[in-house]
């Protein structure tokens, strides 16, 4: 019964397209703005979105012109608002990264190259909609008006951190902005968001929930739970998969053998779109479309956001060990900030000078926020939230065994 050896030998393991030393070169985007229609969001079937799931929804071309049925026709003010948030995100990230290098934070993760994702998508929603992010969508908080000082307080774990130094940096919680707590185990929020939306649906409120998952993380079971429960119960949820090509050192071609991530949604009978993630206008438009579906009771939309992780995975890794140092330059999607600037300039609503002024102003604001935040302490120097916070909010009330341990802890606290 034992099988014979075959000639052809051994396990098939895909390689990343480029590794250090290789010259990166990506295929150009196949679709141009205008190539793909904008179906009626109400009653749109999954199969009507087949081309969208295998293609790429775009609005901005590489000369900064907006066109096609997906053009959301944002006002110049709205565009400038989006730009400002993106610029703020980038400057904020750079500042935090510097602080991390000096030990004021334990760890950091930037949104570099992906700033448009959270910002355009959150702007396309209503304020009552729930946001269930990963660590790469902090930008949503700017849209929802969160104070930078409060964000920095969290990152540097000082006494004003609203999550009381319990979580690593970038794991924000911001209930006032309906921004649900970030959790480290990847993927879990994706399926949970379906439950959030089911509760909104149960209560018949005009709310939806938006969530994201990474290309790598979509291999977790939670991805399947999310799509499948969404396909059955049709709650108002927007399920985004951010394909930024990499999961730490692992290329997306090892995350899945599927042709596009968006196409997976079709198989669950969920209308699915692939969108240029560095194109602010396209992102906005597709999200608005999904929001319309949610509001109409049409259920979930699955969106693959095609982008590129321009920086390191986190402050802990050096990407030049696993990908060409200039791979980012070869990425055909360009940079989301540059592309929106280019567009605003093209329509005569912005200038290089204004951009420079914006960057300076925001830099000043970030600096000021930073300076204020460190007055409440930082990880290197304290003060931290008191060690008492270890025992609070584990349960609604402190049970006897925690109280006993808390009393014990007080004897030893290194505070």
């Amino acid at each position: 019964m034992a099988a014979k050896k075959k000639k052809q030998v051994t396990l098939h393991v895909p390689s990343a397209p480029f590794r250090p030393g290789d010259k990166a070169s990506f295929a150009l985007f196949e679709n141009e703005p205008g190539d793909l229609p904008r179906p009626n969001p109400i009653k749109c079937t999954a199969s009507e979105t087949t081309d969208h799931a295998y293609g790429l929804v775009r609005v901005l071309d590489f000369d900064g012109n907006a066109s096609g049925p997906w053009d959301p026709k944002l006002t110049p003010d709205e565009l400038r608002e989006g730009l400002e948030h993106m610029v703020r995100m980038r400057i904020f990230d750079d500042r935090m990264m510097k602080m991390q290098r000096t030990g004021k934070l334990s760890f950091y993760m930037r949104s570099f190259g992906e700033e448009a994702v959270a910002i355009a998508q959150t702007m396309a929603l209503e304020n009552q909609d729930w946001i269930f992010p990963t660590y790469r969508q902090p930008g949503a908080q700017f849209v929802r008006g969160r104070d930078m000082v409060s964000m920095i307080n969290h990152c540097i774990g000082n006494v004003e951190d609203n999550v009381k130094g319990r979580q690593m940096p970038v794991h924000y919680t911001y209930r006032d902005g309906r921004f649900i707590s970030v959790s480290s185990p990847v993927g879990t929020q994706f399926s949970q968001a379906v439950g959030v939306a089911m509760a909104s649906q149960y209560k018949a409120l005009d709310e939806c929930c938006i969530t994201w998952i990474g290309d790598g993380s979509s291999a977790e079971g939670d991805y399947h739970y999310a799509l499948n429960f969404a396909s059955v119960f049709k709650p108002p949820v927007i399920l985004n998969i951010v394909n930024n090509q990499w999961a730490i050192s692992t290329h997306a071609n090892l995350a899945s053998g599927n042709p596009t991530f968006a196409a997976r949604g079709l198989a669950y009978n969920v209308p699915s779109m692939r969108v240029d993630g560095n194109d602010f206008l396209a992102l906005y438009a597709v999200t608005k479309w999904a929001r319309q579906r949610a509001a109409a009771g049409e259920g979930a939309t699955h969106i693959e956001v095609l982008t590129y992780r321009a920086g390191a995975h986190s402050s802990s890794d050096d990407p030049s060990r696993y990908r060409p140092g200039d791979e980012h330059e070869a990425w055909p999607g360009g940079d989301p900030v540059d592309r929106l600037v280019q567009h605003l300039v093209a329509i005569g609503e912005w200038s290089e000078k204004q951009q420079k002024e914006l960057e300076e102003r925001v830099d000043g604001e970030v600096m000021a926020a930073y300076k204020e935040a460190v007055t409440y302490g930082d990880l290197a120097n304290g003060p931290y939230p008191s060690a008492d916070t270890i025992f609070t909010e584990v349960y609604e009330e402190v049970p006897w065994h925690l109280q006993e341990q808390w009393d014990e802890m007080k004897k030893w606290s290194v505070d």
Partner: protein
Amino acid sequence: MPEMNIVQAVNSALDIMLERDPDVIFFGEDAGYFGGVFRTSDGLQEKHGKHRVFDTPLSEGGIAAIAFGMGINGLRPVAEIQFADYIFPAYDQIVNEIAKVRHRSGGEFWCPLTIRTPAGGGIRGGHHHSQSPESQFTHTSGINVVYTSTPYNSKGLLISAIESNDPVVVFEPKRCYRGPFYGDPHNVPTWKDHPEAEVPEAHYTVPLGKARLAMEGTECTVISWGAMVHVSEQAIKNCGISCDLIDLQTLVPWDKDAIIKSIEKTGRCVIVHEAPKTSGFGAEMAASVQERCFYHLEAPIERVTGWDTPFPHTTEWDYMPSPARIADAIMKTMEE
């Protein structure tokens, strides 16, 4: 007062809470139309509507995940896991997510979720329909862990769990659903005439964190939970030693005062559970009792438990603690 078995008591608790609180919502595999494979939600979909009592896809991980989302968005979900053996695909969601969300969010989000699940052996279920995995949930703070044993506490504890603003995992002894189990597989009594089967129709609670003194005595303290409470009762009767029998009811947080008080009286302790011995919750009980009552102890604390093996099918009566084994352990503590 009406007499109920555990299936009816659970059904009544769910019915009352669905009635009282529009935020309560109940779901699980086959739990909607069919009323559950053990019939615990029989009739509830018809009564409360398909949007409040419903079937889910066959996915315990997904069930826990959507329950999490519903909980943080203002509902009070109650999820059924068809057998406790099948709770493990949901383990990550429970221990890493549900248990920690209140803390990690600085109290801005919390999840008032109840998960209820039939557990334990004695129904010839083999190793995947018999496990009693309670201890695997007691190591994680942020969740409460309950194990019921009678119709009365099954209803009262379930109502407390649903009303709690913390997540609670409730194990129900499936072997006792329709009658107590005294350790003799050939004797299949119903709950008829059992005092703990007198269950008020109306709302009442059995508080979380409080044990029940099932028998009162002076010589030895027997601590147990779930189906083993009844087997322990039989053992105590058989051996004729005067024992406190403590039905723990809630494992986290456990009832320290009840236990210390009893051990200080008796000086002897036997712990009985049907889960495997190593790192069963009996280990925590024994460790805690010796920590707190060392100078009152006259003899080593005994554990009578399932073996450290998978749960067997044909030979399950050789696996589960029997009245004889328990009685022997009690006698052993008395020898010292």
